């Protein structure tokens, strides 16, 4: 698999650190960390990441608001990550075209499973 460039949009430094630990041993790179959705949108347009990990609950702009503003091709690069995963939230994310949803706390192998499946779909 080609090395992928990953942007983490999450207000938690724990998630940023956990993401780096999960993906970097596999040759992928975390290219940025945005602590809210608004900064995240700016970084998406500046960095054009291959994969966007997106928290749901954040200050300033939450993850669902970010999804509303993303173009279709970018929505397909999103992995939603949240401490909440009730059916209503999953349906909302799915409605925007998001195919991958990870529960916090996640394991490194969960992240890699989502990334590998996403890359497989892109081919």
């Amino acid at each position, binding site marked *: 698999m080609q090395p992928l460039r990953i942007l983490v949009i999450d207000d*938690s*430094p*724990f*998630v940023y*650190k*956990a993401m780096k*630990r999960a993906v970097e041993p596999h040759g992928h790179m975390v290219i940025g960390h945005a602590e809210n959705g608004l900064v995240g949108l700016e970084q998406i347009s500046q960095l054009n990441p291959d994969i966007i990990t997106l928290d749901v*609950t954040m*200050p300033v702009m939450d993850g669902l608001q970010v999804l509303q503003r993303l173009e279709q091709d970018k929505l397909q690069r999103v992995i939603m990550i*949240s*401490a*909440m*995963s*009730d*059916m*209503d939230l999953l349906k909302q994310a799915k409605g925007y075209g998001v195919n991958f949803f990870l*529960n*916090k*706390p*996640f*394991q490194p192998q969960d992240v890699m499973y989502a990334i590998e499946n996403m890359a497989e779909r892109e081919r």
Partner: protein
Amino acid sequence: MRDGIYEFINEYLSEIFASVNSEVFNCVLTESENGIAEASDRRFVILVGMVGHYRGRIILEMNSSTSDAILQRMNFGDPVITFQEQSLFLGELGNMVGGKFITAINNSFVGLELRLTPPIVFSGEDLSVVTPEIESTVKHYSADCGVVRIDIGIEGVKACPNLENF
């Protein structure tokens, strides 16, 4: 349905908390009869609100040595030193515990649509947190890193009579 919520809490809280423990703390916390040791130690209290068709809050409480040990595990072995960093990590811990908890409630009691408020972290000595208008279910969990107290209350919902209440 209201009474059913507390029965649900009583039945599933240990399971929910155990899943967070094993994934985040990398240790097993078991339900304990013992409370947090009364030491002249600083304490941390994490408060996460629940809003939706009901209102309530989840409170996690631990002393600083327990907090240090948990945060070091969350931070992949590196100590978390500054209060700002500690607050961010503890807030995330509150989010994870609260998130798992309300996910379980929302999926079992359709229509409640509970959501979490941003966490608040308090720190101090001789710290006691009381929410007098809400009945609470309180449980203690212990492990090698210490004891964590969890207190869950939902406004207008009576706690189970066999549980510790305010």
